[in-house]
């Protein structure tokens, strides 16, 4: 020790420090992921694509891909037991962030459209074919049934559900599944309109639907109670998501818990969204994320999304064959069967207005849209029940 000169001592420490820096530990994979993170932030800020999700996820990707010496025991990585990021990530890995988000969704969603026209629920059910269509493709590619189920849930267009299910069925694929699900949800305005145009005629796009009746508060109160009991009796494994969704809605509709409903739909949802988005982004560490499987997951997720949107639209066309002329449904609301709330309902409305400036479809599309939320949670429960 005595032989070590002061300059050597300085050099030794500086060298050690250099070995800990991101510059020393960087690989090309890190830079690819940093570019992906920056792309997400750009999409959110410049293109206004789901900024509430893409900004936290994008910045999370930057956080998760700052290179460091993983063998130094610094306890900073998201996968290192006891690190701050690891503690925050527990909500994702143990699956308790998604039910909290569902609580918020329930507290901010008005189910009137669905209650007034209950047959629209079937559109939400039909759109779930995207999940199981993708499941078939995933098993054909060679994924294990549990992995295929976790990937296929991307077709539900429901980020929290995708995270919840993948944390149970395929935790190793969760990062890729979550990023894929949220990416496609952000790209709903790009993906869905061509599909809707492809499967509909001009005459069908001009169908005007009758305004639904006003829904009484009693019906709104009964809905979450009956909805939770019925759906959870059929699929008890969907309880964490469906229970919280309907509980949030009861807080909103009962009229005596306004303060709780406001907290659930604003502060709580915002807090959980920040933590969920950031940690999901940070979980995409280059070493875990940049694999051939991720490419397959993105491909399958895209397919699932297309199948889901198409099956919703096609189901409405099929449904119209048995409906009287006065009760025909505009197939442009079929895409809203996926549960990207309220984005896909807005797409239905915008496309409807494009062909007839007086044809407002938003409230009609909200029916299948919220039915899609229920449907995807039920589908997740089914997959969990069969494969967990």
């Amino acid at each position: 020790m005595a032989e070590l000169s002061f300059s050597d001592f300085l050099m030794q420490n500086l060298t050690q420090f250099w070995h800990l820096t991101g510059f020393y530990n960087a690989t090309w994979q890190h830079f690819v992921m940093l570019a992906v993170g920056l792309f997400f932030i750009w999409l959110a800020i410049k293109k206004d694509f789901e900024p509430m999700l893409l900004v936290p996820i994008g910045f999370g990707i930057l956080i998760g891909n700052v290179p460091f010496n993983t063998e130094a025991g610094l306890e900073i990585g998201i996968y290192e037991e006891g690190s701050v990021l690891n503690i925050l990530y527990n909500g994702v890995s143990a699956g308790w962030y998604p039910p909290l988000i569902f609580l918020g969704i329930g507290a901010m969603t008005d189910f009137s459209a669905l209650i007034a026209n209950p047959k629209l629920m079937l559109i939400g059910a039909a759109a779930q074919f995207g999940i199981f269509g993708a499941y078939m493709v995933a098993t054909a590619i060679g994924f294990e049934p549990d992995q295929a189920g976790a990937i296929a849930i991307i077709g539900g267009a429901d980020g929290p559900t995708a995270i919840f299910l993948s944390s149970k069925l395929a935790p190793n694929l969760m990062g890729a599944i979550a990023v894929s699900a949220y990416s496609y949800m952000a790209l709903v305005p790009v993906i869905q309109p061509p599909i809707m145009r492809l499967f509909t005629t001009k005459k069908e796009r001009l169908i005007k639907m009758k305004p639904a009746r006003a829904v009484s508060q009693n019906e709104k109160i009964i809905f979450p109670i009956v909805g939770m009991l019925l759906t959870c009796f059929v699929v008890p494994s969907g309880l964490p998501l469906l229970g919280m969704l309907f509980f949030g809605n009861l807080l909103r509709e009962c009229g005596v818990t306004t303060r709780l409903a406001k907290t659930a739909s604003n502060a709580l949802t915002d807090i959980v969204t920040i933590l969920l988005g950031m940690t999901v982004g940070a979980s995409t560490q280059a070493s875990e994320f940049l694999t051939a499987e991720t490419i397959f997951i993105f491909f399958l997720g895209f397919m699932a999304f297309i199948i889901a949107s198409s099956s919703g639209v096609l189901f409405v066309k099929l449904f119209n064959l048995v409906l009287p002329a006065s009760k025909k449904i505009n197939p442009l609301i079929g895409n809203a069967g996926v549960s990207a709330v309220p984005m896909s309902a807005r797409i239905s409305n915008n496309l409807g207005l494009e062909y007839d400036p007086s044809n407002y479809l938003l409230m009609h599309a909200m029916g299948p849209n919220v039915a899609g939320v229920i449907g995807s949670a039920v589908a997740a429960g089914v997959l969990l029940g069969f494969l967990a």
Partner: protein
Amino acid sequence: MKKHLVLTLVALLAASVSFAQGRRGLRINEIMVQNDSNVVDDYGQRGAWVELFNSTFGPLEISSVYITDDPAQPKKYPVPLGDVNTEIPARQHVLFWADGKPSRGTFHMSFTLRPGQDNWIGVYDADGKTLIDEVTVPANLPAGHTYARKADGEEGWEVRTGLTGSHITPSSNNIIRDTNVKVDMFKEKDEQGFGMTIMAMCIVFTALLLLSVCFYLINRIGAHISKINKMHSHGLAIHETPREERPDHDSSEEIAAIVMALHEHLNSHDQEQTVLTINKVKRAYSPWSSKIYNLRELPRR
């Protein structure tokens, strides 16, 4: 004050019920009466043992439950308090030695098992009266064999020899699974995923169809109730037809025709051309077009 008292009592009752429910998940899982070549205890000695299994999906604290080999003496061996190891994690096991030496620690019971005889073993809850689980080990159980549940915590017992396929598993699962059976079955029987798709879509449709039918019925009942309320507010009996639905009630078209006829008949103007426009007056207001009822508006009482 009374309300708070009732609420507290309900909460206490719920807590005690859930506690009892947890205890009921305790199962006797495997028993060895003559241990000649099997597992040894902390003192390096072989003895008879009884394996308990927590069949619930939450941790289970078993201190103060009783384990006994005599139904007449349900409180024969109380599991001691104050040992952290008496909390069995979810779906896990704990081994008790039936060596008659309770002074050796928490997991050494105060009785032994009797080779060549039927051995009844029971587990009682903390009250010493509620029997949680019981089993009778047959007298002909050979040395080195165990009497075990075929699967952890489930019905059905068998004699285990210790040979391949009939493993003796102290403090371990009676069935050792290295794969997910459900996944394997889907992989084998439903290679293409059609089965999953058909079953899952049927379930999803059933769930939402049930909800849909239920709310269709609620709609109808709601509409009927509002109609009755409306008629009551107009002072009509339920069987009476509302004024606008009566056959003698003039429709707006009929009124318009009468007005036109009167206009023709009484017209004293012979110079100007009169254009009569009849517009149906309808309510422009609807909650669907109201800005008040937007998606994020919370209802107020």
